[in-house]
């Protein structure tokens, strides 16, 4: 029983990170109907920049403090936000009028560019990451279950950012504009919405979230390398689809389901089946509910 609870705790903390990455996928999709495959690699960039900011440019990692950790995260967010902006500005915007497939392939291209460009620039070796003043081995016990502070931070930050995101989308001018562009770009433009600005903002926001996720992930697993965005990116994408792509709460829910499924399958079935079963769950859910768990069935636009 305690083992089960322990597995659940691990699953929730893993799921929270998937969810945080998934938010970026889902938001960009919501506005542009574009699956930004480079998102997982912006996530990597976030972790990598966090490493540079904490271990190379400053000595933060040697004596981590909360203030330093927040500063490192902000630096990483700024760099990723800029990268997200540049990718959209120079990669996707020129292709906006062309078929969706072109943008999709550009996205895959950017993903590879960041992965292998990253290997070239940063070197392929994994680095140890430790910018937060707590390590995964700092834990407390509740009912025999050990919970690490980083797990709590992951879940807390993910939920917090989801709430902030929800407020931005539904209770701010730019959010209203985002929804308008998502609904019908030409009409939104006629109504005076600056489409370019809105889309740029969406990318920047998504990339900033990816940076936070990168830092959290690297803090929880202590490893940063240029290909680290590959699997988490893919799984976050799956989480986004699972929850209903384009839907913020759906991304959160999808991430949690995937994280829990992975942990429980590796604990009680076999870790060799972990990904197979996690993805089988995805297929099942999509067979029953093609728009995802929280997706609206009527989201199809004409």
């Amino acid at each position, binding site marked *: 029983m305690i083992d089960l609870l322990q597995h659940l705790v691990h699953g929730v903390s893993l799921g929270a990170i998937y969810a945080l990455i998934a938010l970026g996928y889902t938001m960009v999709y919501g506005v542009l109907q574009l699956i930004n495959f480079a998102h997982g690699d912006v996530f990597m960039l976030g972790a990598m920049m966090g490493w540079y900011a904490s271990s190379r440019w400053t000595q933060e990692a040697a004596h981590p403090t909360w203030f330093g950790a927040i500063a490192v995260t902000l630096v990483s967010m700024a760099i990723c936000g800029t990268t997200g902006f540049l990718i959209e500005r120079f990669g996707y915007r020129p292709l906006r009028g062309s078929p969706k497939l072109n943008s999709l392939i550009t996205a895959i291209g950017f993903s590879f560019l960041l992965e292998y460009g990253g290997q070239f620039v940063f070197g392929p070796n994994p680095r140890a990451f430790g910018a937060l003043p707590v390590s995964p081995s700092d834990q407390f016990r509740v009912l025999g279950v050990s919970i690490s502070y980083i797990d709590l931070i992951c879940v807390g930050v993910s939920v917090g950012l989801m709430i902030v995101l929800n407020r931005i989308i539904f209770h701010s001018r730019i959010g209203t504009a985002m929804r308008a562009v998502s609904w019908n770009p030409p009409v939104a433009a006629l109504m005076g919405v600056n489409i370019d600005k809105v889309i740029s903002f969406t990318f920047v926001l998504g990339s900033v979230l990816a940076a936070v996720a990168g830092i959290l992930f690297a803090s929880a697993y202590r490893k940063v390398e240029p290909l680290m965005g590959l699997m988490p990116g893919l799984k976050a994408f799956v989480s986004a689809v699972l929850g209903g792509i384009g839907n913020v709460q759906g991304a959160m829910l999808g991430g949690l389901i995937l994280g829990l499924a992975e942990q429980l399958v*590796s604990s009680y079935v076999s870790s060799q089946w972990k990904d197979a079963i996690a993805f089988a769950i995805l297929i099942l859910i999509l067979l029953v509910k093609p728009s995802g768990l929280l997706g609206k069935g009527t989201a199809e636009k004409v």
Partner: protein
Amino acid sequence: MRRMSANFLVCVLAVAIGCKKEQQGGGNVGAADTAIKIGEVGSMTGTEATFGTSSHNGIQLATDEVNAAGGIKGKQIQVIALDDQGKPEEAATAATRLISSERVAALLGEVASTRSLFMAPKAQAAKTPMVSPSSTNEKVTQVGDYIFRACFIDPFQGYVMAKFATDTLKLKTAAILRDVRNDYSVGLAKVFNENFTKLGGKIVDSQSYSSGDVDFKAQLTNIKAAKPQALYVPGYYTDVGLIARQAREVGLTVPMLGGDGWDSEKLYEIGGAALEGSYFSNHYSVDDPSPRIQEFVARFKKAYGGQVPDSLAAQAYDAAGMLYDAMKRAKDLTGPSIREALAQTKDYKGVTGDITMDEHRNATKPAVVLKVGKGGKYEFSGRIQPEGAKEAGPGEPPREPKKTEGNTAPNPAPGTTPTPTQAPAPGATNSAQAAANTGQRQGVPAGEHSKK
């Protein structure tokens, strides 16, 4: 503005492609047609990049030394090194390219068994001798009679650790966590399991993961519940570092045991103190006092700016040396002649031990066990000799069954084995970091190697 962005992209792309370009080795070798070409395939980039770059340095040193001594049959050797990025398919492609367009006389590589298994059929089909420096999976040389290796095979490493665990550490129970995507890891785990059981121990749990995973808590929580006295993790350093940390996080504090895939300075960087008190089997130890090893270490440091050769570098050095030795003895430099000479290799004085080819083209030589000590120092904890003709197949000249030789106690008695704390490797560089790392593997980031 758009034009500028396009130019920028082209630049970035060019840079990205440039980094994957082949690395021309061979130092200052003259015109290619007068040189003997040797192909090298290695993971210069990717998650196991230190494997490829270390091996490359070892091969390069052996090549430079042979070239300086006049080359082979009056010709210089040119090493053409291709990067496979740690991907099996790329290794096969690289091997094909080296054989068909570069027409190399022989191939050196790969480190990882998985990738060697992709290369070997290409070499075998083209009758090009291939020597793997450190692929320890049994299957590699079973591909055909042109495939050799300069290291021992998995059964031996699994046996070494099982023997060490039962005889020296006096363990009764152990659990296994193996990487199912890696033939090497599966091979070691299987043989460890067999031998540990045969020697009177009990495997209480057996779990698996896939290389590249970052979360191992589910498996480790299960293992903890089975209460083993040790955890055998025959994986590669990146994963092992993370596993060690997470094992401690879930409260599993028993020592970890492993194989030569642990051997990288990154191991301790990632795993940190969680690894202290763990043991792994390896091919050689820089702390081994034998003059042959100490001279090699000195030459290597001189060539690579004070960098201490890890075991991959030492093995690659031996693999290249053994190949060049065979080429000198071969009647000509065709594939069949080199193959013939390689197969006859007997008591080749390598830095990792005397190497004799058995009839299955596997090297027979001893293994060492190292302990990860405080601060990531590797302590020489014993040498285990091959046991009889075990599992090597029928007909092999029987070697006398040997007990663990030298000192197998975790705390070496004075006089038999030095501890690195007492005897830092000679010639250590003065830099503070090098001093701190003495006894631990050192390396420069792979990106810097690849520009060499």
